[in-house]
């Protein structure tokens, strides 16, 4: 083993893939379409969400091309409006929300807690199909004319003024919402009921804590967006006056309902990423995460606080001064647990033994970008500042720093980290590092100029813009093309590695955690026998002892 890496692969001459594993436990379409195996369902989700990511990304690329020039010359206004609406709807509801819980969570939660599957495997499959149906509705609305309400569906624009496929788009979100609720339920029950003997709450990996918090948000918040979407559809079809002021409704009510879901949803899009961070930073520092309890409870605190901040999206909409005060204060408080986490991850590296494999590089970029994104969030939560910044590119940059810089980095990080477990093969490490660096540079070049644009006052969702903003927009578009390379590269080498990657063995990173103690790819039932947990989480000394022990035994 080299002194700059912890990668420990079996001898490639003699190594073989395990004879039985979940990928070859059955062949053919039916074995996948009707599978109850949480790992296969995770793969199904992965393929589906990546498909949606490609659609959303394509829309983003077209938008950035349009914004190269100040005049709206590449596409028509209506087309541009559809582009950003579809980009937002797809990326939020069909990529960011499901990707981490449904893919990494499904694959890892049962293994990490020492279970054979989730609590309700059939429900798990059902929630995948529900998601798929929701996705078809969305695809229908995109292909047959598109939708141009923005992902925020602002009333009365969405209910009375646009003529696009609002109903099918809303129904897609409504249906996909049930998939979230069922997944959340499944996770909560699984984590409560199926922990292996000895796996106490405080021996759980921090990954599980943050997914638990995510699941709670899923269950409590998603019904609200579902109701809201139904109300939108009813108002369009039957003209009931819930939101329409002409019928005695209140359009502000829509804002409350929408953000009551969509703000907690923002944390659905970041909490799982935080879980990934805890695992990866610990592993590549060879250390237990600094202040385990604080990190664990900060996840729960985020989930709780996230329900009390929604009106910070409405500071300029004429909510009363007192509610503005309360919501600003709570928004400040919700930033604290995130700050705690960032400091604890950094402190984890103190006196560690750090190596710089690809997942760790992604973790660095997560920490950096998330810190910027989080602190700009504090700027926006400061009432007086929000007036100038909201509805401009500053907000766009802020949430892309959190959601793309943070969450997508975390997803990439997690995919690289668990790729050997999922597929049994390694991705090419050097290319991985190249891709991680490309992503970091491309990301900053794309979104940093947007902070400046925002403070200058450039409004979001503008098809054409004043000429003085062009230089920064060109920079942003240039960055976006680098960013695209940063995504395409992993897509290619991941595919390549499926056949040609080095055989990973059960624990290439020499990590703790139950998932690393079983073969890669895992058996259909994960464990030959349910493990008994008599060690703490992230106990790298325990792991070192165990390895030494095995070596002496064999030797």
């Amino acid at each position, binding site marked *: 083993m080299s002194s700059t890496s912890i990668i420990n692969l079996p001898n490639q001459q003699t190594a073989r893939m395990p004879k039985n594993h979940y990928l070859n436990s059955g062949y053919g379409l039916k074995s996948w379409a009707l599978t109850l195996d949480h790992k296969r369902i995770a793969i199904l989700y992965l393929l589906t969400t990546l498909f949606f990511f490609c659609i959303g990304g394509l829309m983003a690329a077209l938008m950035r091309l349009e914004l190269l020039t100040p005049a709206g010359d590449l596409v028509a206004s209506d087309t541009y409006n559809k582009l950003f609406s579809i980009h937002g709807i797809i990326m939020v509801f069909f990529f960011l929300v499901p990707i981490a819980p449904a893919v990494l969570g499904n694959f890892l939660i049962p293994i990490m807690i020492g279970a054979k599957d989730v609590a309700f495997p059939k429900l798990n499959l059902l929630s995948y199909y529900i998601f798929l149906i929701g996705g078809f509705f969305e695809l229908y609305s995109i292909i047959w004319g598109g939708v141009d309400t923005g992902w925020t569906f602002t009333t009365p624009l969405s209910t*009375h003024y646009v003529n696009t496929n609002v109903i099918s788009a809303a129904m897609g979100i409504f249906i996909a919402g049930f998939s979230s609720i069922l997944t959340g339920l499944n996770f909560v029950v699984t984590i409560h009921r199926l922990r292996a003997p000895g796996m106490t709450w405080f021996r759980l990996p921090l990954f599980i804590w943050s997914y638990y918090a995510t699941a709670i948000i899923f269950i409590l918040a998603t019904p609200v967006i579902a109701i809201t979407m139904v109300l939108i559809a009813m108002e369009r079809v039957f003209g009931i006056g819930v939101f329409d002021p002409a019928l005695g409704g209140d359009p502000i009510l829509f804002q409350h309902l929408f953000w009551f879901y969509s703000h907690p949803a923002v944390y659905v899009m970041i909490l799982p990423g935080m879980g990934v961070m805890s695992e990866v930073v610990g592993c590549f520092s060879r250390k237990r995460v600094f202040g385990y309890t604080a990190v664990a409870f900060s996840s729960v605190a985020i989930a709780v606080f996230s329900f009390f901040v929604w009106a910070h999206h409405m500071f300029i909409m004429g909510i009363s001064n007192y509610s503005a005060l309360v919501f600003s*204060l709570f928004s400040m408080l919700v930033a604290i647990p995130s700050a705690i986490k960032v400091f604890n991850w950094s402190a984890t590296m103190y006196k560690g033994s750090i190596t710089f494999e690809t997942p760790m590089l992604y973790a660095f970029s997560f920490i950096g970008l998330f810190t910027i994104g989080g602190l700009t969030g*504090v700027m926006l939560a400061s009432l007086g500042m929000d007036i100038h910044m909201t509805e401009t590119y500053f907000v766009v940059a802020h949430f892309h720093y959190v959601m793309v810089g943070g969450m997508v980095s975390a997803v990439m990080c997690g995919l690289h980290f668990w790729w050997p477990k999922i597929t049994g093969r390694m991705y090419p490490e050097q290319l991985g590092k190249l891709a991680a660096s490309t992503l970091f540079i491309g990301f900053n070049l794309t979104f940093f100029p947007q902070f400046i644009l925002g403070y200058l006052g450039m409004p979001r969702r503008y098809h054409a813009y004043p000429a003085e903003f062009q230089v920064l927009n060109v920079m942003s578009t240039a960055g976006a093309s680098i960013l695209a390379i940063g995504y395409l590269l992993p897509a290619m080498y991941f595919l390549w590695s499926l056949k040609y990657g080095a055989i990973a063995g059960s624990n290439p990173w020499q990590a703790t955690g139950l998932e690393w103690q079983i073969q890669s790819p895992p058996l259909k039932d994960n464990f030959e026998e349910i493990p008994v947990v008599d060690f703490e989480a992230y106990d790298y000394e325990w792991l070192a002892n165990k390895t030494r022990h095995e070596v002496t035994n064999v030797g």
Partner: protein
Amino acid sequence: MHYISPVLWQFLEKWLGNSPLFPPEGSAMSVHVDVFFLFLLLVEIVGVTIVTLMVVTFTILYRKERHPVATQIEGSTLLEATWTLIPLAVFLVCFAWGALLYFRIYDPPTNAMNIYIVGKQWMWKAEHPGGQHEIDALHIPIDRPVQLTMISQDVFHSFSIPAFRIKREVIPGRYSTVWFEATKPGVYHLFCTQYCGTDHSAMVGWVYAMKPEDYRAWTQGSTSGSSLAQNGERLFASLGCHSCHTGQESARGPDLAGLYGSKVRLADGTYVTANDAYLRRSILTPGAQVVAGHSAIMPTYQGQVSEEGVIDLVQFIKSLNSNYRIKQGATAPELEPGQAGTPGTVPAEPAAQAQPGNRAGSAHTTPGTVK
């Protein structure tokens, strides 16, 4: 600007305000917002630097070559308390400062002159009290607080002047207000920042901040012939309001003179202040708040009067607080002496119907009414 350090102020005014990476500072408030922004930026930079320093230092000191075996550390309550409480304190400062600024930006001074803004897909209409109309443009005097009373005729819009650091949602069905005091003559961007449909990005215009004398010249040069209150009076007649609101004791509707700004007792015993929003509601949904001592016989005018028409009516009812023909200059302080719209220069009789831009005539054909 009094309590901002002069050095900082110079820096903002002379240097940042002229930099292409910073928006111009056109209002009294923009300097305050920018100072707060610089503070927040400092917080941001310090925060990011601390985290970066931690990460970089540890990765250099404790990379595997130098530090092959990690030392296990459980945690440290003291340290964790430190990095909980210090950010908390800093964030609370941001909160308090931000809140103070918010109230300053949104609470108009009482002596502000009022301009009405109507947003509709996809244009901004400004209605000056003297009757001047403009589209996608707003002329204002500098060194004088200006309040905008805004309403949308269709979807949500948002009225934003980045150089003044102000923005407010323009909502259908209710008035929202925002105010500013321009400090430098100039031409500034005006944007709609809330996505509002096809031509959202074309819903832009210019704000012309002018020296008071230039502004006065502009108001005289671009009058439409009659003030908002005069338009309102004609509309009041043509919609038949005067058949009930005669001002006499025996009339079927209450006397509207002296109504604006007073406390009205409603049939359910509660009181409301008769402000713009109340007058608007009384015209469009009279049944919702019935005045004590009257029955709900007033018909709704929803769908018959446009938002501009409602504004005219409201201005007219406001002007009834005094005899507006005589004292109009006093109730509409926005009007400068000698300007069109003051008594004597404009015929207030219905004969004005023949003039371009007036709002009288049939309720279904004039620009002040719907369709």
